[in-house]
């Protein structure tokens, strides 16, 4: 029983971080109808940036989010403008998907050249610190990461609900054609949306780097989990991805504790397949014609 509850606590805390990463990806899909296969790589990029800031300038990983987030925001805008906007033709969706895949590879390649393949992680002095609450271990880093994720999701929510840009985004997600007719600049929204998605990846990256050992190739594991989460939550629904992230965090943690860690990733795959078979639009996805 103790192990069970400990696993659930761990799952919730981990789920919060995944929620942050997934929200960016689902936002990008909602706006551009493109599955961003580079989201995992952007998280790893964020982790490496945090690592460099930490080891060379001694900046605390949580604080460095202030630097990495705007930086990756700009990188995201740049990527969208240079590599996704110029795509045209009948196969735009397919090409965009492949381009994001290529971006992921490029990021992985650049990071391998820059940092090598050894597993690294970010070790601030408080990395091993944990509280014991009612007999359960709660690690400081995980807890702060969870709180941080909630805060950033709140910021994202604020942007989408209360700002003009947010309204444009929501309009584009709901009906791109009408949104354009009403004066929304689709290109601008796409670029900013991709930038936001990358920014969430940066924030999640700092945290990810503290909790896990990572190397440039870690993005494959991440992307497979993120895909499950966004599909489960419903492509395009941020609230859905948050709920799905928590569910998957707890589910995989339970499998890890009750069965064996080597099957914990499998949980993600099985859930993904079941969702696609039984309810392709996920928990909160809109019923759209076409792809899903």
């Amino acid at each position, binding site marked *: 029983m103790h*192990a069970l509850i*400990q*696993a659930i606590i761990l799952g919730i805390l981990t789920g919060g971080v995944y929620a942050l990463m997934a929200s960016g990806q689902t936002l990008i899909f909602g706006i551009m109808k493109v599955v961003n296969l580079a989201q995992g790589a952007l998280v790893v990029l964020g982790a490496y940036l945090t690592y460099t800031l930490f080891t060379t300038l001694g900046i605390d990983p949580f604080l460095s989010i202030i630097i990495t987030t705007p930086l990756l925001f700009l990188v995201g805008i740049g990527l969208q403008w240079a590599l996704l906007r110029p795509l045209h033709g009948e196969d735009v969706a397919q090409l965009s998907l492949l381009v994001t895949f290529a971006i992921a590879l490029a990021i992985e390649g650049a990071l391998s050249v820059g940092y090598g393949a*050894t597993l690294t992680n970010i070790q601030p002095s408080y990395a091993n610190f944990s509280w014991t609450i009612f007999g359960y*271990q709660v690690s400081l880093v995980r807890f702060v990461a969870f709180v941080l994720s909630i805060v950033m999701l709140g910021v994202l929510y604020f942007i989408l609900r209360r700002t003009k840009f947010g309204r444009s985004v929501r309009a584009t997600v709901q009906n791109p054609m009408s949104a354009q007719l009403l004066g929304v600049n689709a290109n601008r929204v796409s670029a900013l949306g991709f930038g936001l998605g990358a920014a969430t990846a940066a924030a999640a990256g700092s945290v990810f780097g503290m909790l896990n*050992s990572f190397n440039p190739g870690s993005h494959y*594991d991440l992307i497979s989990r993120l895909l499950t989460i966004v599909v489960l939550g419903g492509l395009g629904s941020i609230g859905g991805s948050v709920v799905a992230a928590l569910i998957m965090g707890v589910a995989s943690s339970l499998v890890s504790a009750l069965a064996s860690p080597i099957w914990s990733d499998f949980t993600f795959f099985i859930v993904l397949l079941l969702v696609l078979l039984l309810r392709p639009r996920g928990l909160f996805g809109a019923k759209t014609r076409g792809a899903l």
Partner: protein
Amino acid sequence: MQLRIHTPEVRRSRRVLAAAGAVLATTLALVGCSAGSTTSTSKGPLKIGISLSLTGDFSDSGKSAQRGYDLWASVTNKAGGILGRKVALTIVDDASSPDQVVTNYTDLITQDKVDIVLGPYSSLLTVPASRVASRYHYSFIEPAGGGPTVFAQKLSNLFFVQPAPTTAGGDVFADYILSLPKDKRPKTAAYAKLDDPFSAPIAANIQKRFEAAGIKTVYDQTYPAETADMTPIVAGIVAAKPDVVVGGTQEGDAFAQIKAMIQQKFNPKWLFEANGANSPGDFPAAVGKANTEGVFSSADWYADSTIAGSKAFIADYIAKYGGTAQQIDPTSAEAYSAGMLLQEVAKKTGKIDNATIITTLHSGTWPTLVGNLSWDKYGAPKGAYLLIQWINGKLTTVYPASKAQASPVAPKPHWAG
């Protein structure tokens, strides 16, 4: 959707034939080219071909091996080479890929026509590479492929340059524990194993002997290579309250295990990590210098090793590459030792061809930086590793007594936090 190409047939066919002719000519030229390459004479340089992982997953270790090989070549050439011939190394990158390593050794042997080949980094690459060498009847002295699959191939040309097969890396720890009087031994044991050919078997071997001696297994878990988060596993270990924890690990996961134990404030009486804790620089950096105290591991070589030739090796290494002795990766010492074996065979027999190497190394004991080595007929070394422990911030040999620099410290002092 173009399924038909609309171009005049006649013009096209002429162009195709011209292109075909060009390709044919080029191919024949290539064929001719390679047929004309020279073979090395017995007076020219001794060409040694090696494929190493200079990029990719194993690149750090691959580069360490490269440094070891290069250092050996330069030291040997300064002393006059082997049988009067200068050593010329051809090192190519296999990017940690088995396909590439097969291609590389095939090219080294058939195209570059090297006299001798030495092994790549890791069992994963050694297995396919050794097959290629065996096919062409080349000897295969290799410093880094010691997993069971290497010896299961039953190749008679292969020699692993470490004191024992890698899976025996923990045997010396089992020797130590079982040498203790019954009332001083641990009663319960927990095993956390990394799912890879090197690591899990080390713990599994210890487990077999412990269970046979009556030490109860209270936790046994294997985890995949990419597991970044050891918290759930360590939580399970903590719940089982074992006396001794045995980690069949590589570096990253060993560090993660220990950090999780510190976080969960769990201090076993004995803690053995197959790898990770044997790294003089990375380990204190990863877990904190004060937290290293009392952790056991095993090694064949480390900076304070008292094996003959070690001090000279360290001096030459620092002269060539800089840094400190603590920063030298044992892989460099192992690669260097591979070269030493070639020198010793030449000195003993006066010859340095592959057949001689193979027959000569199969008998006797051969001194290297990693100990005195001897092999069985399939290349598995018949010695044992050293049991090392962190005492006062330094790695120290504590078992067997004949090689120990200090007595083992038990129970393990508490974590510093």
